[in-house]
């Protein structure tokens, strides 16, 4: 991603966006490409640029507030311990031997 490369600059990223004109260009919806780029994105920088965009906010709204995990589990990345989710309620209670 673009950064300020002036000699001696340490925090030259992300560049702030000063918008005078913004255009939209249609692109093919390609889920495979999106999955490919997903882990590589500098998310903090991307969000800084995207936060003002209405359709981004709508997708964000949908993912944040409208998609609910109803049944399943949340897994601890270290131990693999499953915290079951039932009727949308995560059970975070520990067994006695886990405290």
């Amino acid at each position: 991603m673009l950064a300020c490369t002036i000699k001696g600059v340490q925090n030259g990223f992300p560049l702030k966006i000063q918008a005078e004109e913004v255009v939209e260009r249609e692109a093919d919806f390609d889920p495979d490409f999106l999955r490919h780029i997903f882990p590589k994105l500098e998310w903090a920088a991307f969000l800084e640029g995207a936060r003002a965009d209405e359709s981004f906010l709508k997708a964000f709204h949908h993912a944040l507030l409208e998609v609910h995990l109803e049944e399943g589990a949340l897994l601890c990345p270290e131990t693999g311990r499953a915290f079951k989710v039932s009727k949308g309620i995560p059970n975070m209670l520990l067994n006695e031997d886990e405290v």
Partner: protein
Amino acid sequence: MYNDFEGKTVMDLGCGTGMLSAGAALLGSPAVVGVDIDADALDVALENCDQFEDPLPVDFVLADVLSIADSSACSTSGSNSSGSGGGPWRRLRCDTVIMNPPFGTRRKGADVDFLRAATRLVRGGGGAVYSLHKSSTRAHLQKVALRELGCSEAEVLAELRYDLPATYKFHKQQSRDIEVDLWRFVVPQRDEAQPSKPPGQGRAAGGDEASDGECEENSDEDDEESGE
């Protein structure tokens, strides 16, 4: 009145059947999370929230509120919890906490532990805690809030008379009127600018001490330790 609900994230600690959670949603919170240790109570809470025509933005979590208080043990002194410390619940944050905690009659200190958890959740961004406590603990609670938990304000908004029916086995009388205070505690905003500041400014420690001092100044409460 204080703008603590409209557009704010709210947590309801010890939410029980979720009445306060639903209330917070009706007051305009777009995201409410109710936490309780009782799975049966949460089942009823789900049913209660389903009664409303429009779906309420309320979620429930089965968890032990006291584990939130425990995990904040290292940050109750008011100093650095924004970085490494703070335990497994340190990422849990909200703007406003509402709660009707246990009064600490059976398990001494449960009310203060809930308050500790609550102030921990709104720390960082700064926020308010609404909580019901027995009036007999008023002076003590104010002292704890201002001196120990880093609140900048602790105000009794209303006094209620609460008819507590015998709900637990250890309740000896059929029902008992108890006087209850509705409190509003304010936790000041932490200076979040510090971590992103370039190194070398080196006044983080001084800043924290200053904010601790502020809390002390406000604690000019009357010292009437009333018994039960």
